[in-house]
């Protein structure tokens, strides 16, 4: 592109034709994430990878395989199971862990689940607080993990945009956005006192599009719920609610078969589906290009009130 001569200074910006071999954005993101995974595995005593079964976790898991190849992944996977995950997710999780030979830990807040905790009996905020945040903190404390990988990305939500790659948490697991450690270059401060921990986000710089492209390029298996097919749904205006949990139904409400898919995988009562014909990953990517709403728009939890993700993170959520 021509740069007007008059606007040039010191040395002209030579716009050289991109000479091969140039690394694509996916190779650059992959190299950065692998560097992070290796740093954490080498600097912490007891790291763990939070495995949520979703597309981001699937990418993170593949990156972990790559980071330590030909050695096995040197830390366990932890799934915080709220009891409201889709049956297909649980089956996929167990098969994935088995096929790659990873150690899988599952943690449930059994007392809250036994007490009948659900997002309708309580509100979503308190339900998440007990089944996700509390369960996660209990699990980290139980196993004495000092670092936990999460698949969160900065492009997901505004408060996540301010997260560090190494997110320091105090002994109660809480995030203090005003008091974060500066993070420069690729030099991460891994020092914590006993009881404190670091949440690590190796996919910080990936976007939703990057994740899908990488899954496509690398042929990474993902849960079938991401692909469109005829599924029974409660239809409420624009919203499609999976029928997985009986308590979701309103009095007299009957499910309808709708060609639909899930754009992100959460708990079934709080994760809406979207109408879609996308049966393949390229079709999902094409759909993404045409989308005019962000992927978390179908998550009830982010919208309860302004800044609700930020508040959950302060309390210890990922």
């Amino acid at each position, binding site marked *: 592109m021509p740069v007007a001569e008059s606007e040039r200074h010191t040395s002209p910006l030579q716009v050289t034709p991109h000479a091969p071999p140039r690394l694509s954005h996916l190779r650059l993101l992959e190299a950065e994430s692998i560097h992070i995974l290796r740093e954490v595995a*080498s600097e912490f005593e007891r790291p763990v990878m939070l495995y949520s079964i979703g597309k981001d976790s699937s990418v993170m898991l593949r990156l972990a395989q790559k980071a330590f190849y030909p050695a096995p992944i040197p830390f366990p996977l932890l799934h915080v199971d709220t009891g409201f995950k889709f049956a297909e997710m649980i089956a996929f999780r167990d098969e994935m862990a088995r096929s790659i030979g990873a150690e899988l830990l599952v943690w449930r807040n059994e007392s809250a689940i036994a007490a009948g905790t659900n997002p309708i009996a309580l509100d979503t905020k308190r339900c998440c607080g007990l089944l996700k945040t509390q369960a996660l903190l209990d699990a980290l404390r139980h196993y004495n993990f000092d670092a936990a990988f999460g698949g969160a990305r900065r492009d997901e939500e505004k408060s996540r945009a301010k997260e560090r790659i190494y997110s320091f948490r105090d002994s109660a697991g809480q995030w203090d956005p005003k008091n974060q450690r500066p993070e420069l270059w690729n030099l991460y401060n891994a020092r914590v006192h006993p009881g404190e921990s670091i949440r690590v986000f190796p996919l910080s710089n990936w976007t939703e599009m990057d994740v899908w492209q990488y899954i496509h390029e690398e042929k990474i298996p993902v849960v079938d719920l991401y692909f469109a097919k005829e599924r029974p749904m409660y239809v409420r205006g624009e919203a499609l609610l999976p029928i997985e949990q009986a308590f979701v139904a309103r009095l007299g409400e009957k499910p309808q078969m709708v060609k639909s898919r899930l754009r992100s995988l959460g708990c079934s009562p709080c994760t809406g589906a979207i109408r879609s014909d996308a049966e393949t990953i390229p079709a999902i990517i094409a759909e993404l*290009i045409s989308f005019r709403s962000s992927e978390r728009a179908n998550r009830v939890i982010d919208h309860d009130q302004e800044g609700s993700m930020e508040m959950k993170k302060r309390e210890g959520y990922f």
Partner: protein
Amino acid sequence: MSALTTPAFSIDDFLQNEREKDLLRFSTAGSVDDGKSTLIGRLLYDTQSVYEDQVRSIEGKGTTAPGQIDFALLTDGLRAEREQGITIDVAYRYFSTARRKFIIADTPGHEQYTRNMATGASTADAAVVLIDASKGVLIQSRRHAYIASLLRVKHVLVAVNKMDLIGYDEAAFRAIKADFSSVLDQIAVDTGSPVERIFVPVSALAGDNIVHRSDVMPWYTGPSLLELLESLPPSIDTRTAPFRFPVQRVLRPDHKFRGFAGQIASGTIRPGDTITVLPSGRSAKVGRIVTWDGDLAEAIAPLSVTLVLDRELDISRGDLIVSTDRPATVAKNAKAALVWMDQRPLELHRRYLLKHTSQTAPVFLTSIEHRTDPATLAHSPASTLHMNDIGAVTLNFLRPIALDQYNENRSIGAFILVDAESNSTVAAGMITAVSSLTAAGVPILADTWGPVTAGEREARWGHRGAVVEISGPLPLIDAIERSLFAIGAVTNRIGANDDAFLLHPTLLEIVTTLQVQSGVLALVVNANDSENLVVRADGQDLTLDAGNVDDVDDASGTSGAGRAVSAVHKLLHSTGIFISSEKAGL
């Protein structure tokens, strides 16, 4: 994302095009009101990188007229920020065009947040510096440009914003451009890093020259800000730089395989290449470059790979694998530029932890050469550095460390300091000079591959170049010259009244300028029978009574001449000409 509207959209073509996209990281910073958030919001909105629900969630809020979108709200993430109308921390934004993916490190411009600007600049290939056209060049823009230059951000794009408020006036734009260009030139002299800059007149509010070229400024024929960002060369190409590979982890899945995992910091590696492991200095050949996707015939920075060597060497995490013919310097001492980032100020001779590549090692800061005001570029002597201060310091490592200078290798020349008690990240640093060790363990100066730099001369001689004017009795002048010579200063004595200078009045200035540039102390002497000795350096004067040079002070046992010499050393230290009191012989 208008791809879908074209009739011939093909997902396969799209994916092929995506595969070829690269990545550019840039930082932004600005003062509270110069429209930075609006500019970023505009970039995101006009490249269709914002979703409708995000736009809906801010519609009708903010400070703009009804029906308009306050673009700033797209980027102000945290409740505390929205409540206070400020930006409190570095936020990262992502957008993409048909040509390239972008990561923005969006940093606030408050005075106390120098550390955030440095954080954003540390990974940036380019910096967008904002100037409010209605206000001209403010301190904040100078500070951002300085930090970008200090952290070796290659390109500075100067967005002269709010052109709508000054009637899109070309003359005003030209004046700001001239003004800020001279600021950038001064910055380049101070940091030793040339700043490549391009100026663009924009209005973020109206969208002029942000994404689309605007027709309201026909006098500006250059590209829009986004077009510039799309056309900058991608990340600094380090393929031809010396090979550097910090070992992150030794992979030993079984007794047959032993590989060294790391990310290539610079250069290119192939099987058969000879490498050396630092600091031990042992060499081997690369046998295999192992990845999950198969062995590679060649790997370039910044790929993450695993190297297998042709023989057993004792290598562990923190070691640096380098090309044998172009190694890094192994040192126990180095000089560095520091950005202090902690509430608790710097303490000399306190033990800090240095985090450098994949190693953590104890370090002492042994002296502070000066503190630099990033807005005025003034250097001042300092005994500590406070939060957001920038300074030049000397480091002493307890064990030898392999280093490059930051201006030669960003990855191997960068470090952070961690407080060993609080675990806070207290400073970010950039190596400016390295004293290497010989085989016998004796420190010598770095044999870098470029010309000898001013910093290297300073490190060896203990002072920078300066003119020192001395007038007074000859014996005192002789004593001063000899005393400076005795402590290793490089001096050149010039008689101010020599015939050559009397015949050619400008010659003296030419000669002294050259000597100062070479790091020499130019002693311009004027021997006379005056009662006073007058010494002038860097605009500071010292006048001493020269009548009692032989008197011995009973208390200190020093002669008048001794006291005069000592006063001169102190003057040359307090003006920052000597880099430390030790080097000044004090």
